[in-house]
């Protein structure tokens, strides 16, 4: 019996407890310890990735033990390609976020760095748990465990409007969580199971819907329960129109926290769609497929337009995050369609889902890198980050301009960089399955290109704003800080097999599960 995943989750959790116990005085030590913990977790995650058998779509590193048998609660952990990918992403983004957190605590002594670092580590533990748990009770524990540190990180270390932003974030997410909880209690009541794998098997045979209808004597109950679960994930991703918490939370949160929010926490929602919603409610999704596709299209197009209208760098990237995750949803929903009359529909679905998984990882990498760059700009400008506050920076900070340009072009989907491959696969898959949706979504790509180029133009090109004539370029330490992300962007751009080969078996299995 191996306990690899349990240990991996416990490392940041225990590290957080130790860091919290250090006290506010030992700033450097708490930072160092947090960093060490996150690197140990990274090492663990990389080891797991190496030992992960990519050829198999089955769950691996499984741990299963009874917890509260009478309630159907088990301690059930395991990862397939999807879970392993997300664990790896979490492990990569967290140390980066900790590395750039140092500036938050310069000068002011009253900001309790030990609590901050402990919360970041607990957030990481919550994320690891969410991506590995396969029993609803256990999974929900970690889903909520991730929310509480995130709330306090925004609430206590955020910008001027952090109070309302944190509250809005928390309440929105809780609306989703309560709906999700009620849905799963109903499912547990009707089927006696909390096990995601078991429930997916029941859904495939159609037994789940029948059981629900039989137990409740209420025809539309399955649909209501589906919407409850849908709401839980839709808020987290977020899907328009459930997104209004996001711009406030992302822009008020300190930049390292935004890196975690967008880099990994937003993936919790997409992960939920893939692991839970698609396998457990395929019938219901099919019944409302067209509206769902419209939601995905609206998410893509409207968020791109909203990003275009923003004047704050953080808000621009925040809206572009919604846009990028919209592509994942488009792929997911398209992959559920029945698709009669499409040649090789399984192949197309697999392409779309492959693209979605790749896009999740890429977006985590790129968006967190972009927020990292914003935090570096803020450090130099004393907190200014308006689109019109800069100008001509490329003359004074050429290295910065070059590297951030790479990240921006990756976000834009330039071939050769990572963003392209994911979006390409998604569109390749979605076009035959839902041509109209794919066609309208291309508007999103176009608008994204416009606002990202505008950003580059306003900030880095044009006449130099004299105020920044003495802005220092990236220091050596900072170059090393952004180097891994930039390198990965190139690597994944030319060699996406690194990820695709690991998730392919999982995707094939998921597609088979959706076809019946």
């Amino acid at each position, binding site marked *: 019996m191996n306990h690899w995943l349990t240990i991996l989750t416990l490392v940041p959790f225990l590290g957080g407890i130790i860091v919290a116990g250090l006290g506010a005085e030992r700033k450097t030590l708490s930072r160092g310890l947090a960093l060490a913990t996150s690197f140990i977790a990274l090492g663990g995650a990389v080891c797991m990735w190496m030992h992960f058998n990519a050829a198999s779509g089955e769950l691996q590193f499984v741990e299963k033990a009874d917890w*509260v048998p009478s309630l159907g609660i088990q301690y059930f952990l395991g990862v397939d390609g999807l879970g392993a990918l997300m664990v790896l992403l979490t492990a990569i983004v967290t140390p980066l976020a900790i590395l750039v957190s140092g500036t938050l605590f310069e000068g002011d002594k009253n900001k309790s760095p030990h609590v901050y670092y402990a919360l970041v580590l607990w957030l990481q533990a919550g994320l690891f748990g969410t991506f590995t748990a396969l029993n609803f*009770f256990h999974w929900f524990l970690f889903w909520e465990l991730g929310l509480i540190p995130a709330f306090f990180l925004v609430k206590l270390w955020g910008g001027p409007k952090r109070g309302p932003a944190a509250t809005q974030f928390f309440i929105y997410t*809780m609306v989703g969580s*309560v709906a999700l909880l009620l849905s799963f209690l109903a499912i547990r009541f009707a089927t006696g199971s909390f096990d995601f794998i078991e429930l997916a098997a029941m859904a495939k045979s159609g037994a789940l819907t029948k059981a629900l209808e039989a137990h409740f004597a209420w025809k539309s109950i399955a649909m*209501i329960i589906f919407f409850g679960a849908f709401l839980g994930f839709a808020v987290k991703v977020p899907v328009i129109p459930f997104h209004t918490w996001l711009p406030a939370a992302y822009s008020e949160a300190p930049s390292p926290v935004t890196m975690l929010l967008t880099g990994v926490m937003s993936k919790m929602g997409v992960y939920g769609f893939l692991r839970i919603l698609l396998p457990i409610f395929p019938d219901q999704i099919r019944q409302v497929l067209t509206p769902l596709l419209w939601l995905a299209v609206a998410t893509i197009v409207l968020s791109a337009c909203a990003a275009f209208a923003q004047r704050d760098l953080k808000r621009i990237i925040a809206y572009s995050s919604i846009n990028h995750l919209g592509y994942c949803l488009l792929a997911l929903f398209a992959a559920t369609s029945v698709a009669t009359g499409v040649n090789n529909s399984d192949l197309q679905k697999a392409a779309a889902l492959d693209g979605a998984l790749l896009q999740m990882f890429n977006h985590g990498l790129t968006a967190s890198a972009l927020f990292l760059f914003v935090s570096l700009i803020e450090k130099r400008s004393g907190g200014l980050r308006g689109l019109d506050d800069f100008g001509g920076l490329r003359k004074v900070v050429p290295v910065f301009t070059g590297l951030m340009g790479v990240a921006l072009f990756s976000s834009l989907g330039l071939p050769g960089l990572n963003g392209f491959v994911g979006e390409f696969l998604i569109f390749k898959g979605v076009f035959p399955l839902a041509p109209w949706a794919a066609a309208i979504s291309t508007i999103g790509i176009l608008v994204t290109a416009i606002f990202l180029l505008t950003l580059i133009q306003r900030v880095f090109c044009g006449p130099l704003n004299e105020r920044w004539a003495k802005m220092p370029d990236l220091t050596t330490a900072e170059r090393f800080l952004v180097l891994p992300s930039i390198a990965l962007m190139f690597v994944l751009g030319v060699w996406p097999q690194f990820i695709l080969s690991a998730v392919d078996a999982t995707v094939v299995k998921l597609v088979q599960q959706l076809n019946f």
Partner: protein
Amino acid sequence: MLAWTIYITFFGVLVLMLLPRDNARAARIVALLTAIAGCVVAFVGAIQQTNPGEVTTIVKVPWIPSIGANYYLAADGISLVLVVLTGLAAVSGILFSWNIEKRTKEFFAFYLALIGGVYGVFLSFDVLLLFVFYELTIIPKYFLIARWGSTRKEYGAMKLALYSFVGSHLVLIGLIAAWVVAKGQLGHASLDLIELSKVHFSVGFQHWVFPLVFVGFAILAGMWPFHTWAPTGHVAAPTAGSMLLAGVVMKLGAYGCLRVAMVMFPEGVRMWQGEIACLAVAGIVYGAGVALVQRDFKFVIGYSSVSHMGFVLLGLATLNTIGLDGAVLQMFSHGIIAGLLFAVVGRMVYDRTHTRDFNDLETMQLGKKLPFAAVTFVLAGIASMGLPGFSGFVAEFQVLMGAWAVFPKLTILSGVGILIGVAYTLRAVQKGFYSDAPAAHGGHHDHPLEPISTAEKFGAVMLLGASLVIGIFPGLLMNWIEPCFNSPLSMFARLLVKGGSQ
């Protein structure tokens, strides 16, 4: 063994009365030792009970043979859970009233008398004995609030006493009627709960007697719309008083509903099941909504108690195993969490700042001045919202799962109550501890606050630990609760036969 919880506690009252008037320190220590002894006995006794599914007799001697009354103490798993809760609440309440200087000895004497009565109710299996202990708790409650309370204390105390008396009179009328009918059927007078639970009262009789007894008990459980004593009483009471009111006294009402009203009149419950559930959900949503707009910190917690007790009543109304399991677990969980919330607000904040008004607290930045209180309140608030990891989640989770079976629409509605619960807790955290409002300078708020004492830290850690342990290992208590409802021979079997759809 468990009977000693009652005797030790009343013996403690006696010792306190004999102490010299001005020795506050001795009074505190005697009270604490008594409570700890009671708590230890409760734990050991509960663990020793090998078969929690059955009623284990502790003592049974004739008391008033002519009316069939016995001195009959016994315990099953549900009693065990609540006795352990009482033990924990008693010890922590004393830790949080260490600073009582005014007539210390009388305070703790009343306090222990209340605890003794509560132990008595949870262990009585004779209706008259149960009723006597139940009445016995009213008197110390009244004096604790009227003498040591704050904010309209006479009003709060009187209201609580009157509501309690009205409730117990309803119960009394119903029980006398039941006694008369049962005597006719059994051929001899009996007040034995186990015997009464086997009597078949006619459906017409149950139809009107059940609501009398149930509502009589449910008044004390804070059932909407008879809940109004709860917020005023909680606010007026001294810290330990509110901790006990919310922690155990409200459980007395819910326990009475389950143990007496529902067990004796199973047909009656089935007839009124829908109405009870509606009132319970009304309480959940209404209590949470009112808590959301309070200006007084203690009123927020007071109304939140009404909301959380709504889950107990909803669980009772489901009449299926899982809902009832959840209801009993929620009694335990709410006892622990509400006690802790009142301790933070009453002892840690109010006794130091002398205000509970959010407008004043906002300017004090207590998050920085009292970090221990702030962290405790945040954790207790998370537990109270019902986030996983704490006991409240497992309890509400089962109540809702049970409720899905019977009242799917009401279940969805109670989800709204949970959400408002999140909102008022966040609001309280924000306004009470982490407000960004500019600090007020000058005035009486500027003096340094007395640091949190060791006694308070012990109490807080104990309660939080209990909630966390049960949240992660609910099996510890479920192993006591479940057999009570699962066994076909138990006194609840009649209740579950036809009602639940499981």
